[in-house]
C-alpha cells in the first residue's frame, strides 16, 4: 500500500511528465521558430516538475521508463495528441489554469509539496499567460483560426472533469479548484469570442479515469516511444 503522499506525487508527476513529452513532440514542427522556443520552454519546466515529483515517489527513471500504461496516474487530458496548434493551445489553457490554482493552494498549505509548488507556481503562471495570449489570438483571429480553436475547446472539454476528482494525499480543496477554474476559463474563452461547450457535450464533464490507470488509445504509443531505449538496454547508465 502506497503512502498517500506517494500516490499524490505520482499523479502530479505523471501529469507533468506526459504533457512535457507531448510538447517535446513539437520540436522542429512549430508554426514559427519563436513559438517552438516557447513550447520547448514550457516542456522543460514541466519536465523539471516531473523530476522533482517522481523523485518524491521513488526513482525518477524507473518510474518514468519502467512502468506500464496501466500504472501511470496522469489525467487523460495531458496524454491527448497534439493535433493542430489550436488543440495544443487549448490543452495547455485547460491544464495550466488548473495547475496554477492547484500549485497556488499547495504553496499556501502545509505538505511535502510546498517547496515544489512555490517554485512551480511561477512557471505555470507563465504557461497560463502563454496559453491565454494564444487563445485570444486564435479565437479573435481569422474565421479559420476561430473555428479551429472552437473545435479544440469542444473536443478536449470532456477530459476536463477528471481534473477535479480528489487525489489521495493531496491537501487541495477540489470543489473550490473547479469553481475557480471554471470562472477563469469561461472569462478567457469569452474574451477570445469563443464559447465553452454546453448541451450534451458537457455531460461528459465527468469522463476520464487516468488517475485510476485507465488511459486513452494514443497513450500506449506515446509510452512505447518514450520508453523504447530504456527497455532495450535495461540497467544502462546515461
Amino acid at each position, binding site marked *: 500500500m502506497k503512502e498517500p503522499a506517494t500516490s499524490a506525487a505520482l499523479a502530479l508527476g505523471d501529469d507533468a511528465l506526459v504533457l512535457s513529452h507531448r510538447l517535446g513532440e513539437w520540436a522542429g514542427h512549430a*508554426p*514559427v521558430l519563436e513559438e517552438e522556443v516557447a513550447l520547448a520552454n514550457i516542456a522543460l519546466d514541466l519536465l523539471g516538475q516531473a523530476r522533482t515529483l517522481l523523485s518524491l515517489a521513488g526513482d525518477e527513471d524507473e518510474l518514468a521508463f519502467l512502468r506500464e500504461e496501466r500504472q501511470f496516474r496522469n489525467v487523460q487530458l495531458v496524454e491527448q495528441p497534439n493535433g493542430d496548434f489550436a488543440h495544443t493551445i487549448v490543452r495547455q489553457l485547460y491544464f495550466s489554469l488548473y495547475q496554477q490554482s492547484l500549485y497556488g493552494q499547495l504553496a499556501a498549505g502545509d505538505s511535502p509539496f510546498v517547496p515544489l509548488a512555490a517554485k512551480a507556481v511561477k512557471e505555470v503562471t*507563465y504557461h497560463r499567460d502563454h496559453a491565454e495570449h494564444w487563445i485570444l489570438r486564435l479565437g479573435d483571429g481569422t474565421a479559420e483560426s476561430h473555428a479551429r480553436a472552437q473545435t479544440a475547446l469542444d473536443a478536449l472539454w470532456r477530459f476536463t472533469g477528471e481534473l477535479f476528482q480528489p487525489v489521495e494525499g493531496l491537501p487541495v480543496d477540489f470543489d473550490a479548484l473547479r469553481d475557480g477554474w471554471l470562472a477563469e476559463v469561461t472569462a478567457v474563452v469569452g474574451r477570445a469570442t469563443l464559447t465553452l461547450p454546453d448541451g450534451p457535450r458537457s455531460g461528459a464533464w465527468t469522463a476520464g479515469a487516468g488517475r485510476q490507470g485507465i488511459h486513452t488509445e494514443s497513450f500506449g504509443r506515446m509510452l512505447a516511444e518514450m520508453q523504447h531505449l530504456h527497455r532495450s538496454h535495461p540497467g544502462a547508465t546515461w
Partner: protein
Amino acid sequence: MTSTEWPLWEVFVRSRRGLSHTHAGSLHAPDAEMALRNARDLYTRRSEGVSIWVVPSTAVTASSPDEKDPFFEPAADKPYRHPTFYDIPEGVRHL
C-alpha cells in the same frame, strides 16, 4: 507565416544589476506583447529582475554608413573642444 505579418523587432535588455538597456538581438513577432514574451524566452531565460524593451525595427532610424566620415570625424585636432586644461581646485571632490 505566408498569410500573417510577423515583422522584425529589436530587443533591448537590462540585466538585474545592469545600468542600462543593451541591444540583445532581434526576433519576429506579430505584435509587441508577443515580442516581449518571445524576448523573455530567447534573451533572458526568464531571470527575474530584468527589464526588456522591444521596438519595431521600422521605428529605428540609423545613421548612415556613407556619412560616417563627416558624422563622426573626431574633433581631436580641436583641443579647445575638450575640457582638459583646467586645474581642479583644491577642495573639489568626486569629480
